[in-house]
């Protein structure tokens, strides 16, 4: 019950922070950070996969409803929820690397950084190409993906130092 409440609060807080603050960030017209995927990233490692996928879907849908991008965030978050176990397995090369929680506090800095980069980049590449749905702006979109990913990773790592310490 305690964990359910904790993750419930985290869900609501991240959706609100995303739609009220980070959706209003328009740096140079290219950078649009999506930090709400931190929710998918921080679920315990042994979360059942169906729960992970449903959490991804509903998280994406919640963001979609607020930002009028029906289905786009949902598609991207379901994808990263699906690949998450593979990502964690592939970057934890030693058995003692594996921890129950994939946060920064429980793992080494470089592990978390790799994890954040892979998850954020996968999410952003799907979202931005789905959004523009044309390859005529291929390079512009790629630039948006790279710049936004850098910014999102920065915010996500920073948030680990500031808020999710306990």
């Amino acid at each position, binding site marked *: 019950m305690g964990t359910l409440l904790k993750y419930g609060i985290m869900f609501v807080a991240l959706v609100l922070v995303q*739609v009220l603050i980070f959706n209003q960030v328009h740096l140079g*017209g290219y950078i649009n950070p999506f930090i709400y995927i931190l929710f998918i990233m921080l679920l315990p490692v042994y979360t059942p996969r*169906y729960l992970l996928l449903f959490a991804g879907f509903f998280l994406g849908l919640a963001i979609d409803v607020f930002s009028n991008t029906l289905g786009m965030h949902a598609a991207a978050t379901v994808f990263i929820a*699906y690949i998450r176990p593979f990502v964690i397995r592939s970057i934890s090369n030693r058995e003692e690397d594996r921890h129950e929680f994939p946060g920064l506090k429980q793992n080494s800095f470089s592990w978390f950084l790799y994890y954040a980069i892979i998850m954020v980049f996968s999410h952003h590449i799907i979202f931005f190409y789905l959004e523009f749905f044309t390859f005529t*702006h291929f390079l512009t979109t790629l630039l948006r993906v790279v710049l936004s990913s850098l910014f999102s990773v920065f915010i996500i790592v920073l948030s680990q130092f500031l808020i999710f310490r306990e």
Partner: protein
Amino acid sequence: MRSLFRYLLRNYAFVLFILLETLALAMVFNYNSFQRAKYLNSANFLSGNVFSMYNSVAGYFGLQRDNRELAEENARLRMLLENQGYTVPVNDSLDLAVQQGDSLIRFTTAQVINNSVNSAFNYITLNKGSKHGIRPDQGIISAKGIVGVVGQVSESYAMGLSVLNRRWSISAKLKNNGYYGSLMWPGTDYRFARLSEIPLHVDIAPGDTVITSGYSSVFPEGILVGTISDFTRPDGENYYSINVLLSVDFKSLSHVEVVEIMDKQEINELENIMER
């Protein structure tokens, strides 16, 4: 058969992944039919309330600029009235009806509670809805020029497509010679839109004013759109490619007016008869 079930059970995560992903993509590509299911956009009760609560706090930070813009517009309108020799009627209602030509136009003020500029399809959310008389396909303008068109309406909120949305285009014309074309946002810079279908024999210059043509029954004629910033003559084409600097700063939208053209239904019915 049994081995198929066993296989599916073992790989249930993959099957579930495909199902959810298909559902999400179906939403993306059937956008328009899902939009009619009106609870999945920012005009619904929950998101409308969240944005409106947020705006009631964040709105204070822009008050100084808002006041200045409103005062400037007041001065401009008063000047227009005085020069036309009207006497200013005393009216404390916010809904103003203006007789323009022979179609009656009604303006309803609204506040922008959510807005975006950096997506490929940008939307604005307004704090007025069907109970204030707002309906889909009404135009949205601000003191500085056109802003967008109403898309979805709930009881007390409305979601509109801003000019910065590639899903629609605006019928616009050049103010000094009346040639008209269609204005569309190419999806890159929030300050510029592209005006096409202006033939090459027309004389244009940077700085020329672009206004609405009034052919679409969304906007009345003569609302400011922007000014020409630069143009090229593409090889092998008969039309200019014109970049228009939009007069509205979409990063700082706060107060807008929703335009209702009273004869709209009659005009649309007439046009439908002609098309048949």
